[in-house]
């Protein structure tokens, strides 16, 4: 695993599986993921909508518990397994030892309660503090998250604040009990770019000042590059690549990561390199594709990839970097080298094709459009 996984990890998730019993069948939203975060460090979890990143985070917080949810694996917070904890124990830890910041602050804050009251409530749920003390602390927290004129804003209702301000309130609320772990689920997605940068800077500052372990969930690699120390890339409920942030951007090893990187604008991209979207859509989690789950959308797919499931394995030259891909390391190296210089996925694919000639059935898959239908209704 990554460098964060020195003995000091405060949050450790082991082989987490989450499935929902729905009318359409069992939805395996998270399928055996493991990661760890140490105090003062940030783990970025990246993936498209439906990759299972939010479900994983909610499960860590115990928010997916229901008769229709099946959860397996372990979620260790300071060594205590949250999945095995009683409802009352979980409640005591939620918002205290581990706190969460949600995406859309307008819908995530109660519309009819003053923001100060919502922060005070978070405190009083876990500590025996009086009203005046709680209010004083709420004011302190609002100042900590740099809300201007906090003394006045403490009595505001959520709709009276701007989006960035509301997100700061969400963060203040999460920090109320000085959690050891902060999970931020798309904390900046609903915000303008400038406000986004401010909120990320705030999160980084607070993480360092308070020594929290942070899990940052996002679909935006730019956010990850700015804030995370380690990155987990999720696809269809599984981890496809895991690496320290520098290495992930310098030497990504999974075609899905390449897709994410090539589909986002970068200043350091070679001149003339086009943005390349990943064809198709994330697969159904009721009937996930056989073999490598990314194969219906992968430009480098070979016949074998449709049947053999890749395993998340460390790279030979860097054990902190792990990838679940059936291409050989040499092939991946060559392909990324070309892609990084601005080559199209077709060119990269041609370069790594086995000497025996083109793969028999993969030809269609290199066309971006071909993945579209196939991704949805993949063979079960």
């Amino acid at each position: 695993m990554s460098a964060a996984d020195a003995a000091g990890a405060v949050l450790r998730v082991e082989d987490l599986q989450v499935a929902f019993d729905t009318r359409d069948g069992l939805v395996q939203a998270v399928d055996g993921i493991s990661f760890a975060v140490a105090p003062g460090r940030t783990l970025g979890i990246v993936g498209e909508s439906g990759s299972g990143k939010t479900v994983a985070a909610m499960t860590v917080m115990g928010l997916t518990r229901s008769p229709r949810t099946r959860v397996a694996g372990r979620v260790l917070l300071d060594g205590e397994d949250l999945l095995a904890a009683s409802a009352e124990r979980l409640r005591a830890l939620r918002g205290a030892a581990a706190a969460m910041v949600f995406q859309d602050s307008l819908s995530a804050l109660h519309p009819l309660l003053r923001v100060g009251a919502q922060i005070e409530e978070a405190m009083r749920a876990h500590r025996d503090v009086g009203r005046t003390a709680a209010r004083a602390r709420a004011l302190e927290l609002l100042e900590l998250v740099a809300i201007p004129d906090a003394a006045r804003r403490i009595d505001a209702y959520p709709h009276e604040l701007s989006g960035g301000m509301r997100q700061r309130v969400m963060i203040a609320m999460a920090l109320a009990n000085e959690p050891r772990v902060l999970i931020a689920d798309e904390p900046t997605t609903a915000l303008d770019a400038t406000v986004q940068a401010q909120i990320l800077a705030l999160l980084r500052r607070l993480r360092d000042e308070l020594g929290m372990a942070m899990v940052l969930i996002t679909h935006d690699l730019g956010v990850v590059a700015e804030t995370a120390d380690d990155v987990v890339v999720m696809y269809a409920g599984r981890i496809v690549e895991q690496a320290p942030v520098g290495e992930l951007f310098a030497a990504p090893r999974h075609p899905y990561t390449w897709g994410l990187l090539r589909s986002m604008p970068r200043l350091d991209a070679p001149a003339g390199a086009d943005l390349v979207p990943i064809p198709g859509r994330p697969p159904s989690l009721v009937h996930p594709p056989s073999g490598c789950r990314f194969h219906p959308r992968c430009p480098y797919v070979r016949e074998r990839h449709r049947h053999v499931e890749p395993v998340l394995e460390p790279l030979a030259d860097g054990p902190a970097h792990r990838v679940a891909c059936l291409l050989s390391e040499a092939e991946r190296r060559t392909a990324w080298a070309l892609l990084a210089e601005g080559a199209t996925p077709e060119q990269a694919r041609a370069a790594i094709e086995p000497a025996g000639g083109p793969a028999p059935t993969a030809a269609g898959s290199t066309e971006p459009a071909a993945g579209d239908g196939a991704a949805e209704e993949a063979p079960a």
Partner: protein
Amino acid sequence: MAAYVLRRVLWGLVLLVLVSLLTFVVFYVLPSADPAQLRAGRDASPATLAQIRASLGLDRSLPAQYWTFLTHLVLHADLGYSYYSGASVGSLLIDRLPATISLTLGAIVVWVLVAVPIGVVSAVRRGTWVDKLTTGGALLGISAPVYWLGLVALYLFADDIGKLPLLPGAGSYVPLTTDPWKWFTALILPWLVLASTFTAVYARLLRANMIEVLSEDYVRTARAKGLSERRVVWRHGLRAAVTPLVTLAGLDVGLLLGGAVLTETVFGIPGIGRLNYDAILHADYPLIQGTVLLAACFVIVANIVVDIAYAYLDPRVRTA
């Protein structure tokens, strides 16, 4: 806010004038007994009838009659005199008001105290036997007309004719000031009967709102904060689920008064509803007008109060 309330009050006054005009028109246009005939008794001579008409002012043109009524009301706060008893309408109303207020306020209390817990619990325990039982009960409450339910209640529980003589029956109402305990026991059945429909409807509405609210992001946030489930449901959930119902409840005060007419009649409670019922039987136009205007006043005031309450309950309305 003050300007808003003033505007609402002025508009309410206009509405009252329109209601009085409508009542007047309806009384004369639709077939109804002739008040003079009713007073004169059988086989009265045309001369007697004409004399009675003249004394009641019924011989004048309709616009003149209405104008007299309106000017008396506005200038002297005078609603005129009952054709039937000759007593002043104002004093009749004031005599009957406490009984109606006792009945309706009590019914509102029952309505809220029963509907809120049922609505919340059936939403939280959706699909369980609790939910199914209350759904069935609500269906009964919604379907049963008040007068039928009142008679059934008397038949079952009244101490004079009931199978299980537990509570005082019809005609046992005494004013609160005379004997508080008797007042209370005499009103238990009427309260329950009058509140039944509203309780059933509002329990269902609250259940639906509550189910929706409990899946909102801010409820998830409340859970993520580590609040107890009770606090999540009863503070965060109920607060949001009940707010839209407050407006609706204001509108339903009118329906409640309609129900009060029937309830007072079935249980023999000497209230405004009963007064209105008798006035209609006697073609007692001034008294009809008086009771209708009073009821309209109630509804208008209730609506203004509810709108103000709503602005207080939902801060988003205040700034809008």
